[in-house]
């Protein structure tokens, strides 16, 4: 029983291994980059625009609105990171329709890598917004005793991000595989549909949680005018 696309190896040469996770990640990257490049070659400002440009504008403004609703007042700064996260995860989930495709997020390596990106991005954006001193001071708020708990919570929510996404995607693939051996008629199709839904929801959750963490780290704290709770 194959637990993850890590075990499907296409080619290996000594130390380097090309497994299904890497190959499908490259395919997704290629698809996203090439399609964006092709669609944004001739952008038009007026009302007459191609439908692909319309689609991209809908997606980008939708993501911008979501980021603004989370509490980040200047969404353009974070649109690159959060938008890419959402688009990659959404495409990885939706492409399970294509036969022979295994979502690369069904491997713990991919989800850990993405969670580590968020783990690095949160202090990065926090320092860019607030400065190093202010950001480090936010770890000892509200009291000094909270310092170890704040540090632990940083690590644990990174771990939770990785395991949540991995668990959802892996379980989707595995349920379909198991059902195919038991009831190979209509039930696996229903479970594949459910897998599509959970893929989209988990992509949204991952990006929104990343946005919430960044918002918590970049919130300029007003000096003692009002007591505000963190989160």
């Amino acid at each position, binding site marked *: *029983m194959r*637990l993850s696309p890590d075990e499907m190896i296409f080619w290996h040469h000594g130390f380097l291994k090309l497994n299904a996770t890497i190959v499908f990640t490259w395919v997704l990257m290629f698809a996203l980059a090439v399609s964006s490049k092709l669609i944004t070659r001739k952008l038009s400002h007026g009302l007459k625009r191609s439908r692909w440009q319309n689609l991209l504008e809908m997606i980008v403004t939708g993501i911008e609105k*979501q980021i603004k*609703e989370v509490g980040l007042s200047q969404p353009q700064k974070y649109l690159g990171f959060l938008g890419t996260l959402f688009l990659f995860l959404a495409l990885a989930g939706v492409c399970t329709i294509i036969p022979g495709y295994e979502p690369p997020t069904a491997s713990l390596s991919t989800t850990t890598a993405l969670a580590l990106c968020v783990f690095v991005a949160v202090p990065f954006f926090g320092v860019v917004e607030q400065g190093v001193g202010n950001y480090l001071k936010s770890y000892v708020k509200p009291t000094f005793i909270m310092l170890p708990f704040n540090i632990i919570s940083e690590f644990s929510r990174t771990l939770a991000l990785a395991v*949540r996404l991995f*668990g959802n995607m*892996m379980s989707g693939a595995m349920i379909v595989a198991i059902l195919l051996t038991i009831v190979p008629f209509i039930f696996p199709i229903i479970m594949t549909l459910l897998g599509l839904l959970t893929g989209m*929801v988990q992509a949204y*959750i991952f990006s929104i949680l990343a946005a919430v963490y960044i918002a918590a780290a970049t919130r300029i704290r007003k000096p003692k005018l009002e007591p505000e709770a963190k989160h």
Partner: protein
Amino acid sequence: MDNMTLIAIASIVIAGITTGFGTMGPALAEGRAVATALSSLAQQPDASATITRTLFVGLAMIESTAIYCFVVSMILIFANPFWNHVITAGK
């Protein structure tokens, strides 16, 4: 009973119990969350976008505890280090 049998029995039983008990708590919590969300949607339908989004985020957070239990069960069944160790020691 030798080590191999003990490890096998423990892994199988605990894998079943982990998923069985681990999904009860999140299911109850999610039911309560959806019930509260529905009643607040009925009270204030124009806040439905915010309520729906917050509901989904909350549901995903609750779901993650169930996912942790599922991952532990999967590890016990398919990637069990104790079983692998005992199998390679018995060869």
